């Protein structure tokens, strides 16, 4: 008895065939989980991963703090007279920029995860097929919420004063919904590209123009006409304006509608492509 309790991995306890037999005898098969239940279970998996590897929260804590500090003090004096004044305009935008940039880690983690044996098991289960991906994105939504909370806290410390608490909540919610939809681009690239590096490379190519060529840092009025055309139709501009409006206590109906419209479009286009790639993998 005393030898069996050794903690070292080498000395494995024997397989108990009689308990095994008991387990095998029941051939009851519970009903299949619903689409929602399967998605939530995969969301739980994403949260367990955060629990076991908390370092991965670095990109939703340190990175956003750095973004707020950097851009507030870099541009504040030049663009708005002082950092304190500039942050009133900048914070909602920089919040959108950081969270939208964080979405690209979804592609990287899908890409590394899919190579592992556990995905073969997931794909051989009789469950709603997109639930694996939806679960990922649900876990990521939590990360986005965390990043938003961190940035708002830093913003308030630096002097950001939103006009409506409800508007702040609404703005964050709009941003998370948009990011969830936007992430389907990354799940697609995560499955499409062969290496983690190429996923990063493509992500940067998409992210930089999309976030910088928007109204996040400056109002588009001073830009040349062709650039204004791009900036004014950039989904990130719509989301940033929407979030800014909400936090200023307004109801920017057009920007909210545009943001949600883009979100719907992303899911409708990249969702099916992702699932097609997932089934083929």
């Amino acid at each position, binding site marked *: 008895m005393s030898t069996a*309790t050794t*903690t070292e*991995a*080498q000395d*494995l*306890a*024997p*397989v*108990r*065939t009689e*308990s*095994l*037999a*008991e*387990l*095998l*005898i*029941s*051939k*009851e*098969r*519970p*009903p*299949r*989980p619903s689409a929602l*239940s*399967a998605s939530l*279970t995969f969301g*739980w*998996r994403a949260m*367990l*991963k955060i629990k*076991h*590897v908390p370092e991965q929260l670095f990109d939703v804590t340190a990175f956003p703090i750095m973004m707020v500090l950097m851009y507030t003090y870099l541009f504040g004096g030049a663009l708005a007279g002082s950092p304190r004044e500039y942050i009133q305009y900048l914070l909602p935008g920089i919040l959108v920029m950081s969270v939208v940039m964080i979405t690209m880690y979804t592609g990287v983690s899908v890409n590394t995860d899919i190579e*592992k*044996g*556990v995905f*073969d*098991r*997931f*794909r*051989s*289960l*009789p*469950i709603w097929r997109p639930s694996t991906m939806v679960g990922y994105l649900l876990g990521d939504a939590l990360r986005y919420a965390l990043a938003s909370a961190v940035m708002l806290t830093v913003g308030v410390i630096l002097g950001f004063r939103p006009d409506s608490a409800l508007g702040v909540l609404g703005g964050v919610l709009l941003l998370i919904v948009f990011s969830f939809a936007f992430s389907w681009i990354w799940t697609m690239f995560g499955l499409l590209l062969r290496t983690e590096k190429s996923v990063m490379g493509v992500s940067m190519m998409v992210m930089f123009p999309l976030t910088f060529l928007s109204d996040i840092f400056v109002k588009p009025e001073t830009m040349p006409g062709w650039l204004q055309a791009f900036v004014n139709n950039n989904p990130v501009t719509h989301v940033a304006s929407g979030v800014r409006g909400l936090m200023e206590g307004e109801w920017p109906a057009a920007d909210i509608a545009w943001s949600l419209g883009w979100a719907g479009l992303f899911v409708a286009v990249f969702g099916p492509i992702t699932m097609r790639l997932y089934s*083929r993998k």
Partner: protein
Amino acid sequence: MSSKQPHRSPGPGDLAIETTGLVKTFGENRAVDGVDLAVPAGTVYGVLGPNGAGKTTTVKMLATLLRPDGGEAHVFGHDVVREADAVRGRVSLTGQYASVDEDLTGTENLVLLARLTGHGKKAAYARAEQLLDAFGLGDAASRQVKNYSGGMRRRIDIAASILNTPDLLFLDEPTTGLDPRSRNQVWDIVRAVVGHGTTVLLTTQYLDEADQLASRIAVIDKGKVIAEGTKGELKASVGAGSVHVRLRHAEQRAQAQEVLRLALDVPIQLEPDPVALTARVGEGSSNGRGAAEQASLALAELARTGITVDNFSLGQPSLDEVFLALTGHPSEPQDPGPQTGQDRQDRQDRQDRQDRQDRQEAEATR
């Protein structure tokens, strides 16, 4: 077995798997090139072949993970492409590398999969605990799987596959990279699972594994089935048996080798064990006598010359020999040489080294 579930009572005559002309190509490479299989329900069916023979690709098609490029495959009568979901409801897969999430603990893995197969939260935890206990992993339940040993990973992997007792279990090289003891334990688990009516499709490159577990075996090489039958049929097709002799004194081995060679008129193989010798006997190998008769002759000759025999057995040929006879090349791609004792032993040594290397590589990639 149980009559509660009307759709699932595979009788003895039913086929768990039936494939005709199954093909999968990757670019130029025809990984699976017209495979026909008929796997009776309730048995262990071995698919035996070297690395790259197309075993895993075949399993992936049958488990609905890969779409066949040609031919048809049915699992319990369901087409694997058109009725993939029905197939998924009845099979479980244990892949070549542990199909569990390495970042999660043993309990978390099993609860996750139990939830995904429809168990409620409470039932999922209860089931996970029972399984961990039965598989001797109770102490490791709250450790991350990446800290498990190779044998423990295999166990948690198989445990995950029998969360709901499947009708068909795919075991893709379940003991690759395991030490002999862990291998034996996995075999015990497989026997227990089959004992409860689950059909098992076992792929392996270890010949003794197929010999130990499977009742029928398909030998597959370069994407094609080159032989199929019961173990006995496969061995009989090679038409030879082996006489194994163990001596009491190692220093008498050279003399014994000479005595046996003269008596049986066949090459005598020296085993790695310094007191053991093996002679291949059987139809056509010498002077028209049957294997048993030759064996008793050999024994009598040894006794007459005063060589003490400790142990003696007349065995069927190993599947290693079967593979060589069928393909004309050994199961591992090595230079085919004449079948002399020394050559065989050298090859055996090389094979052992290769196996160890493979295992180390398998460990290193984890």
